[in-house]
């Protein structure tokens, strides 16, 4: 972005610093690396792998929502774009996993760009509605274009993931580490973007769009770029999902998946690199641990989502950690624990 833009936006800091966020990622990586050794059952390891994969589109959404302040319900469908690109590419023997990943990233970014383009002339709530419509339209296309997508049956992925030096991946632990590697790469990309001048532009657009525009930022394009990045990450995750689970179907990728991503983001918080990952793990593992049936789980998810928005809109984890900090510091005068912009600052527009 232009120098004017960065001087303007130096007043809107991201949460933490590049170093602190990188360190928290490294700590997370170390903790996650030992999981396959200690996890009690194969089923839990499988859920943890799925949680890691689903954290990637959430990480992409955290850039769009946490920094640019723009929510989207389409990222579940963009995840589906990547999944179908990877799976159909494998079925038609067009490309392997490693070629499929960049193709899926490009497809996801392109799809996001085209969807976002429609919403460019209008903003805010129209963008939400367009993303919702796209998510449902995408699912209708998946069901109806049977020749290409297999309709309701979906697509089977028979190809293996070949890693140089290891050969084909077969064990659960191998897929877990593959997912972990992708999660860390995605998180690190987003951390770098968050502390780049691009990240500053995003925050400037979020905090005061008119001021940002008056100083030369092209606000719609900045937002569109963030959406495209989130689409690329969702696409990559989709291909990873297709190769890990070996079967994809249309119902996984409608508006419902998009809502689940919003929930994950609100559980973990959208402004730290570990937020989406922790959110995804809670989302996948807690119902399993307390042994709730799938329908009740969804009811609870819906209610939890509402409660978080009502009580702690910056996210469950950030809200809890702030409450703990406040309790620990108890004696301090009121107001010092408040961040710039107040507790509701995370949800603007």
């Amino acid at each position, binding site marked *: 972005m232009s120098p004017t833009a960065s001087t303007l936006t130096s007043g809107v800091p991201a949460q933490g610093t590049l170093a602190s966020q990188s360190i928290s990622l490294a700590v997370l990586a170390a903790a996650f690396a030992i999981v396959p050794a200690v996890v009690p059952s194969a089923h839990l390891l499988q859920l943890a792998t799925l949680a890691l994969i689903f954290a990637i589109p959430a990480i992409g959404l955290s850039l769009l929502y946490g920094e640019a302040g723009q*929510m989207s*319900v389409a990222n579940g469908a963009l995840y589906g774009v990547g999944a179908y690109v990877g799976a159909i590419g494998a079925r038609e023997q067009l490309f392997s996993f490693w070629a499929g990943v960049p193709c899926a990233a490009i497809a996801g970014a392109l799809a996001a760009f085209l969807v976002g383009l*429609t*919403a460019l*002339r*209008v903003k805010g*709530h*129209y963008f*939400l*509605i*367009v993303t*919702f*419509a796209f998510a*449902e*339209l995408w699912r*209708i*296309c998946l069901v*109806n274009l049977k020749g290409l997508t297999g309709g309701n049956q979906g697509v089977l992925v028979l190809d293996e993931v070949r890693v140089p030096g290891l050969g084909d991946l077969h064990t659960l632990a191998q897929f877990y580490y593959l997912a972990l590697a992708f999660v860390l790469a995605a998180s690190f990309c987003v951390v770098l973007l968050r502390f780049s001048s691009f990240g500053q532009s995003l925050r400037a657009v979020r905090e005061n769009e008119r001021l940002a525009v008056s100083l030369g930022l092209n606000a719609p394009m900045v937002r569109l770029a963030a959406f495209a990045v989130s689409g690329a990450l969702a696409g990559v995750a989709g291909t990873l999902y297709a190769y890990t689970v070996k079967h994809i179907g249309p119902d996984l990728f*409608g*508006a*419902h998946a998009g*809502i689940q991503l*919003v*929930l994950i983001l*609100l559980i973990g918080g959208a402004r730290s690199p570990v937020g989406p990952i922790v959110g995804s793990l809670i989302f996948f593992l807690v119902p399993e641990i307390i042994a709730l049936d799938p*329908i*009740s789980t*969804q*009811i609870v*998810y*819906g*209610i*939890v*989502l*509402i409660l978080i*928005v*009502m009580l702690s*809109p910056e996210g469950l984890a950030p809200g809890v950690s702030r409450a703990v900090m406040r309790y620990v510091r108890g004696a301090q005068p009121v107001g010092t624990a408040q961040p710039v912009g107040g507790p*509701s600052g995370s*949800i*603007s*527009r």
Partner: protein
Amino acid sequence: MEIFLQQVVNGLALASVYALLAVGITLIFGLTGVVNFAHGEFLVVGALIGYSATRLGLPFPFAVMLATLSMGLAGLLIERFLFRPIAAEPIRGFIVSLGLIVALQHIALKIWGGEQQAIDAPLPQILSLGEVRISAMRIVVTIVTGVVLLAFFIMLKRSRWGQALRAIAIDRETASTMGVPVHRYVAGMLAIGTALAGLGGALLLSLFPMSPFSGGTYTIKGFAVAIIGGLGSVSGALIAAVLIGLTEAIASGYFSPAWTNAYAFGAMILILLLRPSGLRGTAA
């Protein structure tokens, strides 16, 4: 020509239900700024309540009333306990509506199961006009919604009550200082919006089967209609509902019905590109 006339009649019945949905969506948005994606779920739950009521032996008109009133009550509760405390930030209302989708859909799934539920047509008669054969139920649905919407529209345009609502939509604070009890009006409007969705659902049940998963499609249809008409404009929503209902019915009569659901989205995207404020601007 027969197919065409036949589909026009079918389309009007659909259009009237879309209009019920879109009017609720557009009013809730106009008054609170909340994009309420859970609106289609109220239609579905209303329909399923109507289904259970008919199954318990209640005559269809009473089942429709029950569905309408219970959804109206749900709207009151949701306004008071969910939307009002966060009224200052509509984006939070939007996320609340996402939570409502998930919760309502699965509560319905728990109570009614995942199958399509249908009732015997309350009016099985078929009227014949030459070659055109029309189900009496479709005519009743069209007339009932037409009367309800017309009455509502006249109240909105002519009564003091409607004037106050329009004042709130334009400037909430000023309306409040002029003595309009804003909270009560917004709550009442939200209840009417969800009640209209419940009414639409119960009426729709007499024409099509309904399952807990039908909500998303209707939400999108309602939003497409509301956007094409211009978010916040009731008359625009009515015009757009007729346009979309007829387009869908005629297109599915001549082309593949599998793509019916896509037409409304296509039209919506076209409108957003060509005329972002919709057919009828933004005023309520």
